[in-house]
């Protein structure tokens, strides 16, 4: 279904992603990014009709952790504002919906994640069914390994292909000044490394990252004023799957496929895709679900394998895809975000430059 209003991504900023922010708290991490995205467009907070953010209390280890992040926004006089306990890509979705209602023409979206204070793979196990799974503490890397094993057994991918994904992504990140990991050994060298959670090797896993990102959306002529070549959101949709891993086909991503269809991915050629695939095998699963051929340039930024700030990595995919459209490097781009264990929930967004 075509959106009622033309809405575009017109601004994007992100932090220089690092393994550990030792001196800055979450507010101090997100504030420069917010200042940057507003300064780039010459906007102050009063010019932004709606603000929406995405984060999770479980990374901060504190209830209501998002409340203080509001200090980074400059929320006085009071602002029209909301927050999702999800990746910032879903905050962008809520903001896009708000603009579609006609009650806003511009929106600020931001998200952040500081994973370094805890043991991320164990923290993420708290996302699981609290009665039957969480008490067993299966960690996030172990669950991804189960999924990778299922994919290899089903002939969906191989360890060699996974190593190639890792090498390609981190080499692409050499051109991304914000990336945490840049450059890679050749795949055949990577394959000599030991497995850390069979069949995953270290290179198959994302880095643990502290980082933040912000995006500005604008409708119609407001977008044209703010951006020479706006990245128009031609379609955006998100879907969720069942939670229990045992009832899902982990070698496929039906929620990505459905969201992609609803967003209109197949209605034209795709030049660039930014896929939120924290683990190498997940890129293969997502490419298949979205029907991509070898001609699609996937994750020229390096993707989540080069920097994976929780809660922001999905929003960054949309920003990176938009950036390619602004620069004229892509006529049509696809961005994807994921949430939950083993790609449980997925969002797909189609961006286009004006012809």
């Amino acid at each position: 279904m075509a959106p009622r209003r033309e809405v575009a991504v017109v601004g994007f900023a992100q932090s220089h992603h690092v393994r550990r922010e030792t001196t800055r708290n979450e507010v101090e991490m997100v504030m420069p990014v917010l200042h940057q995205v507003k300064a780039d467009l010459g906007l102050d907070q009063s010019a932004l009709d709606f603000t929406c953010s995405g984060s999770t209390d479980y990374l901060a280890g504190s209830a209501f952790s998002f409340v203080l992040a509001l200090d980074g926004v400059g929320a006085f006089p009071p602002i029209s504002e909301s927050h999702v306990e999800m990746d910032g890509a879903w905050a962008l979705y809520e903001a896009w919906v708000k603009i579609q209602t006609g009650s806003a023409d511009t929106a600020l979206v931001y998200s952040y994640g500081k994973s370094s204070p805890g043991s991320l793979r164990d923290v993420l196990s708290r996302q699981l069914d609290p009665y039957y799974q969480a008490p067993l503490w299966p960690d996030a890397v172990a669950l991804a390994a189960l999924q990778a094993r299922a994919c290899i057994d089903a002939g969906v991918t191989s360890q060699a292909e996974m190593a190639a994904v890792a090498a390609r992504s981190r080499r692409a990140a050499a051109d991304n000044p914000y990336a945490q990991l840049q450059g890679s050994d050749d795949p055949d060298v990577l394959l000599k490394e030991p497995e850390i959670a069979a069949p995953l090797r270290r290179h198959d896993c994302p880095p643990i990252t502290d980082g933040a990102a912000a995006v500005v959306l604008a409708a119609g002529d407001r977008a044209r004023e703010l951006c020479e070549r706006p990245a128009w959101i031609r379609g955006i949709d998100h879907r969720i799957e069942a939670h229990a891993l045992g009832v899902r086909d982990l070698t496929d991503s039906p929620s990505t496929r459905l969201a992609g269809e609803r967003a209109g991915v197949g209605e034209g050629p795709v030049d660039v895709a930014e896929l939120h695939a924290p683990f190498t095998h997940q890129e293969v699963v997502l490419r298949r679900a979205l029907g991509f051929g070898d001609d699609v340039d996937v994750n020229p930024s390096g993707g989540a394998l080069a920097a994976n700030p929780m809660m922001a990595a999905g929003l960054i995919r949309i920003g990176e895809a938009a950036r390619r459209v602004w620069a004229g490097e892509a006529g049509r781009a696809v961005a994807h975000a994921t949430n939950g264990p083993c790609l449980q929930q997925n969002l797909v967004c189609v961006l286009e430059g004006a012809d």
Partner: protein
Amino acid sequence: MGAERVAVVGIGQTKHQATRGDVSIAGLVREAASEALADAEMTWSDIDAVVVGKAPDFFEGVMMPELYLADALGAVGKPLLRVHTAGSVGGSTALVAASLIQAGIHRRVLALAFEKQSESEAMWALTLPIPFSPPLVAGAGGYFAPHIRAYMRRSGAPDHIGILVALKDRRNALKNPKAHLHEENVTFDSVKDAIMLWDPIRYSETCPSSDGACAIVLTDEAGGDAAAASSSSAPPAWVLGGAMRSEPTMFAGRDQVNPQAGRDCAADVYAQAGITDPRAQIDVAEIYVPFSWYEPMWLENLGFAEEGTGWKLVEDGVTQMDGDLPVNPSGGVLSSNPIGASGLIRFAEAAMQVRGQAGEHQIDGARVALGHAYGGGSQFFAMWAVGAEKPTS
């Protein structure tokens, strides 16, 4: 561009109580959602999208529990959003769900909010570290008590106003079978003699800690018209206006007693709903009052009374069930407080009033009702006005 009209056609609530040990978290949300679907004369497959709201995940110790609840809420293969805007989240959940219909994206949306506070100790979960201050370790009551003191000083309100509010809400709750607290023997003296927790807030002037969930089904104009035409279902409640406003927790000069975000939010809702005189045009209000004194404070913030005079409405009985502005006929947050759900319960109770569904706590002739929620340090606000008549614009 005109936004699509939105109607509430289904409402469900659990029986709220201190511990719902008979159900899992999934069972709790399923109970409310099933009741809302039955009320809407719909099944799970009729729902296009689900919006889930709750307050901090630490209350149950489950990170992003909506992921685990996707199955129980019939959301598999559908869009599911999870909202968290502190105590106002229940209200925000309804507003985000409504926006999906206003935008023309979906036709039927299930909004659900819950909290199962018996899984943890909400008192400690609500003891937040305040930068550059020694920790109070005193929960939300410790945070809000000084603001109440400031209100009393500013307004000159007599000490017994809070007692009157608590007595009213606890008595109203006796008419609401879903309410957590049913204190048959509550009296002015029993509230007055209750232990002082955070001066001036007594134990009986404080919200309980509850397990509970609330769900509503929202539809587009065609769905609302169909409900209006149906002989078997309750009439729809039409959304006349809705808004959210936020401001930071702390800054020099911030008015924490009568925050600007609350005033701005109400003004936005009234403008959308064509309300110029809220005291005259709103028949009943469900206002988020977790501590008794917040009733007069919010009466002023919402424009029902001039600044400094809200307590007079309480003293004159205006906010009683038989007053001319009944507030919290359901018993309010003072009688049931599953925190994440409490805002949605206010929104739902407002809709129940204009649908004529409120049973023993129904206000006769209610045509326009306000639902209100707030959260954080009196800094996040979500409100809606609903009416029995379809809005013309």
